[in-house]
């Protein structure tokens, strides 16, 4: 078998192994690589910096542990920023696996800043059917969430006095790992006109640029790079910044794989052509 055929038909497990090494090595050996900043991330940061001294924003934690690696750093940076500015936070979850994770996150960070549930922040909990839940929140948060995640009656929470629907929050930052992002645009922004920014996974990011340009979104944090940017703007290095080195190595590996496969492909094509020319010249 000529070399190019061997390269083209290589067992996929070799590819897995190469990529695995490209991630494992940088995780164990620590490195630092800076990132470039973008407008859409800055826009989210600017919005969150206005949520201070009792101002209220809705942070929708609509992802679950499967996309946690990309979205958790964003949630952490935003929650810390709001608490530092003494802003108020309303949290909700539209992802089936999200609530336990959100509870862990908010409890941990609130303890760092001495913030109290019900006064400085309220975690409403989870409801299935994201579209319907968002629509119901548009009439009153109490419709889908008569009780919060911990079973308290929402009406009895001091922070919720006079807070009824999207009209009472400065805006929504939705961190979403799935369709919830679309629902925030279609139902939250289009139906109720609440300003929406998204934090999404890298894969989803390219879908939301049209909405950004159409003005349906005021900001966008795309994937782990966006999280790293946010952390850099907020000067709060965390998981986002730490994630960059193995990103670089693994991207490099995939790029090399594409180059190799194409070299082999063209070598094969050239060889086949030579072969057929040789036959036709006979």
């Amino acid at each position, binding site marked *: 078998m000529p070399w190019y055929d061997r390269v083209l038909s290589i067992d996929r497990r070799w590819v897995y192994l190469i990529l695995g090494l490209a991630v494992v090595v940088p995780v164990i050996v620590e490195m630092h690589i800076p990132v470039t900043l973008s407008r859409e991330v800055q826009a989210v940061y600017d919005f969150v910096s206005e949520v201070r001294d009792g101002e209220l924003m809705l942070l929708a934690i609509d992802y679950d542990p499967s996309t*946690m690696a990309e979205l958790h750093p964003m949630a952490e940076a935003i929650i810390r920023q709001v608490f530092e500015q003494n802003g108020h936070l309303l949290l909700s979850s539209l992802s089936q696996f999200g609530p336990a994770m959100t509870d862990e996150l908010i409890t941990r960070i609130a303890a760092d800043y001495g913030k109290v549930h019900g006064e400085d922040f309220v975690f409403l909990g989870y409801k299935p059917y994201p579209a319907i839940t968002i629509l119901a929140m548009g009439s009153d948060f109490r419709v889908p969430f008569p009780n919060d995640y911990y079973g308290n009656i929402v009406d009895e929470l001091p922070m919720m006095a006079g807070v009824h629907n999207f009209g009472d929050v400065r805006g929504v930052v939705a961190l979403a790992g799935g369709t919830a992002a679309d629902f925030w645009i279609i139902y939250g922004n289009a139906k109720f006109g609440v300003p929406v920014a998204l934090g999404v996974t890298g894969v989803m990011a390219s879908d939301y640029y049209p909405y950004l340009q159409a003005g349906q979104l005021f900001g966008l944090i795309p994937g782990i790079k966006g999280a790293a940017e946010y952390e850099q703007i907020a000067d709060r290095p965390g998981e986002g910044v730490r994630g*960059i080195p193995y990103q670089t190595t693994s991207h490099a590996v995939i790029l090399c*794989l594409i180059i190799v496969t194409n070299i082999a492909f063209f070598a094969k094509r050239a060889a086949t052509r030579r072969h057929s020319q040789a036959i036709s010249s006979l």
Partner: protein
Amino acid sequence: MKKQLPMFLVFLCGMIMIVQFVVPHEYSQTLFQHSQDFVIVIGVLALPIGIYSLMKSTVTKARREPKERLYSLITIIGFAVMIIAGLKRDWFTSSTSLSSNLFNYILVPAQATLFSMLAFYIASAAYRAFRARTALAAVLLITAFVVMLRLIPMPEPLSTWNAEFVRWILEVPNMAAKRAILIGVGLGAVTYSIKLLLGIERAYMGGD
């Protein structure tokens, strides 16, 4: 008759909800909220059929193949343990209960791991599919290549050029493509929905 009445019901419910969209009155809002609740309730009450189906296929497999018995038993034990561990709402929401341990140490890592395997699959798919066989394939692979390049540190001005170029791709051709797909999908989905309401598409209803 067994089929006509349900088809009429589809049409009626659909028309009511379309009309609801253009009626801003409070009564219409109440109707909307209730209709959505109703859909949720139907969905929730259908769950027992799902559980029945799962258990049936699990038991059938175990009966047929002795090698499957252990695996089937595992599914049933997992299900039963989780039900018992979550019987009370407090157990379900507390962060130290068995229910939350099962969640945090079995469901979460399993999910995150399967998801992370996509990194390997992407590399493998790129290796096998990104070969410039045709002009179209070449465009696909070159775009993907350029977009991935942005994470590779390069000397200036190359990295700025690349960043600007990726931005251009995102805002011009990528956006055009996404917009076209969105409009197309929207139109196709609406046409399909109208066919559903009119009873032209009715595969899901089945026969008598």
